């Protein structure tokens, strides 16, 4: 029986085990570092960090479709916008409670996704990319034209959010901590989803749709459920956008957001933690390092993508070397 397992396969298992052991430590370290950030950096950087968390939420939503379900989704900013405008309108109507806004925004994102899923999921591959692009640009256009509700290109300004025990959050550090807490809840929800039967089935749909059908799984219904979940995550991230900036405008859900989100997911190479790291890297390059380099943030961003695209084989090789070293 033992010769059933080939040597490369056994090494793959060893490497996976080593990774699995290192992962909790890395996660705890990242969370502690993120929570301690306001103690070491200035107010501007804290706001940037909050913006990075918002983009990371949107990147998770995109990765749920791109990395897990195998759908090249470009339109997640549409559901992000549905959530953001819902939260902003709620805030203007006097509902400043942060968690309530978050729930309403997630619901709005999910409803928008349910309504559009039947149109979008008729296609796959490049056609899917184009249809979701259309959804994104139509939503951005609607946000800019429907002045009576969205305030047009001027956008909507909102009062600071409130949290039940603490009242209104006015200091950037407090807003950041709220955003981080909400973001971690979102991460937990996504992690549970990925480990659920639905998560497994979405991964199955990505690998072998005909095989999924032949096993009796309704592929389109499953993908519709995944699309709805991704819409809810995007919507919740929209509420965090409003919490961080106290402002939303059509520019927040425009083409650049869509492109940067998809690229953050691509940086993540199919994994959820990778997408989050990608989003943080994007904000760091574009806004944090970019500002002192006289607005060359986009050039840096381009360099970042090229670096990742070319070094991926290098990192894979390094991982192998590591696995070979740690072989018993």
């Amino acid at each position: 029986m033992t010769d059933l397992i080939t040597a490369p396969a056994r090494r793959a298992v060893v490497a996976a085990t080593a990774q699995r052991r290192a992962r909790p430590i890395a996660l705890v370290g990242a969370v502690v570092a993120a929570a301690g950030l306001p103690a070491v950096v200035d107010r501007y950087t804290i706001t940037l960090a909050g913006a990075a968390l918002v983009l990371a939420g949107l990147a998770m939503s995109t990765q749920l479709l791109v990395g897990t379900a195998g759908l090249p989704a470009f339109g997640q900013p549409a559901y992000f916008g549905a959530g953001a405008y819902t939260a902003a309108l709620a805030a203007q109507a006097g509902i400043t409670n942060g968690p309530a806004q978050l729930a309403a925004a997630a619901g709005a994102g999910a409803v928008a996704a349910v309504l559009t899923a039947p149109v979008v999921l008729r296609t796959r591959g490049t056609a899917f990319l184009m249809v979701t692009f259309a959804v994104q640009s139509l939503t951005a256009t609607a946000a800019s034209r429907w002045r009576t509700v969205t305030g047009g290109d001027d956008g909507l300004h909102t009062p600071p959010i409130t949290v039940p025990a603490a009242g209104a959050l006015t200091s950037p550090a407090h807003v950041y901590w709220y955003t981080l807490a909400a973001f971690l809840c979102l991460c937990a929800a996504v992690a549970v989803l990925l480990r659920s039967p639905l998560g497994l089935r979405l991964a199955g749909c990505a690998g072998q749709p005909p095989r999924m059908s032949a096993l009796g799984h309704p592929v389109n219904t499953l993908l519709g459920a995944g699309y709805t979940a991704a819409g809810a995550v995007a919507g919740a991230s929209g509420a965090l956008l409003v919490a961080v900036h106290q402002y939303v405008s059509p520019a927040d859900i425009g083409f650049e957001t869509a492109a940067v989100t998809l690229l953050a997911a691509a940086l993540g190479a199919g994994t959820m933690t990778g997408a989050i790291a990608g989003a943080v890297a994007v904000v760091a390059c574009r806004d944090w390092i970019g500002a002192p380099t006289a607005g060359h943030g986009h050039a840096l961003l381009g360099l970042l993508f090229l670096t990742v695209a070319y070094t991926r084989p290098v990192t894979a090789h390094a991982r192998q070397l590591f696995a070979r070293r740690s072989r018993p």
Partner: protein
Amino acid sequence: MTDLLHLDQVSRRYGGLNALHPIDLHIPQGRRHGIIGPNGAGKSTLLHLIAGTIRPSSGRILLHGTDITSHTPDRRARRGIGRTWQHPAVFPRLTVADNIALALPSRSCFTAPFGTDPAPAQTESVLARFGLADLAGLRAGALSYGQQRLLELALATAGRPRLLLLDEPSAGLGPDDIRQLADTLGQLPTDVTIICVDHDLDLIWQLCDTVTVLDHGRHLTTGTPAQVRAHNGARAAYLQPTTTPADRSPEADRPESAPGSRTGGVSVAGLTAGYHGHPVVHDLDLDIPAGGIHALLGRNGAGKSTTLAALAGHLPPAAGTAVTIGGKPVPLGRPACAAAAGIGYVPQGRRLFGPLTVAEHLTAATAARQTTHGHPWRTDEVLDLFPTLHDRLATPAGRLSGGEQQMLALARALLAHPRLLLLDEPTEGLAPAIVAQLAGTIHRLAGAGVSVLLAEHRIPFAVQAADQCSVLAHGTIAMTATPAELATAGQRQQLGHLLGIHHTLGSLA
């Protein structure tokens, strides 16, 4: 008792081509039904029609008396139809255990979305039943071909289907794997109905109690194995090779080679190659004279395909590897360079361009030709070798049957004027009559001075086609012998030991 499955005048047309003429079949519950026929007879079409991946042009399909003609494949699957494909359809990025979890009868993911591990006990029992327990944590894509086949069968049966459709389950499997397959299928509950398409007639006779013969989309006969074997039409269409393999000696029908073509053979020294830096083949030496035919035998995972892929330039070989053709070194690690140096490659799974027609494939092969060393094959010569392709020139490769695709892949490789032809499981998916023809074809190629290296599971075919056989075990050559030597008892025993088989070798000599 009503039939489990009733095909009521079901037919399928593709444009002007009648893939399947109206057919009427009654299959009662518990029947083990074989479907055989030459390549392109409509066997796979029939399975696709039952599984729902193709809609019939006319007729009705009834399962337990319910009309399922308009049902989608997933709805049919929930009604108890399980299936396998010609090439294993598993989820390559998921672990073996997750593959099985997806195949288990669904606890709805909407009513219980947050259970963390779906039915682990059930998954384990399926894994144990198929001997896959040790592999549970591996990604399915890391499994060998034979293991993927086994996993696919596990997937198809895990949901306890009432009707199991098997499309060439033995393709690409070695003798011991086929025996294991037959055992596994035999152990299924007796109320499971099986419809099995296969070219391995021993498997069909052993497994099936009823056999249907198709030819050119027409129903020839249905009956017990004995009746089918006695049926004249069936014998003419399929069972009887045009010439019996046994009375053909390798040297007899090989044309006298042109003077000088015997010089300039292929030499491989110290070939070490593998995946992601992990060698699968170690320090392999091979010498094939011009016009020589060398067969590589070995169990699944022994390194046969890896050797061929490395020679074809698809895998970077490790330092120290040297390959020469006619004394000239062949640049390694680049498919285009290998092709230019005269190496033709027919991979397992064919790798055809789905939407291109047969004629376009042949044109593309001619246009890309860079070598001037080998026998200058012309398109009409190649079409004479494979007459079936003549009638399919305007057909897209994706629409060809499995056997026709294999012929096209061979034809394409020949048009590049190879001096060394690498054939990976050339008989996979071919009807017995075509297999016998193929041996003759390979001899003709060798007669024209082409060196041939083939990886093969079917020992009788390898013995018949090759003039040297090597057995690979754990990435090295464990023994090399001529077919005549293999016929001796001692060699036969060693071969059986290396391949893990003991009973099929009696028929070898």
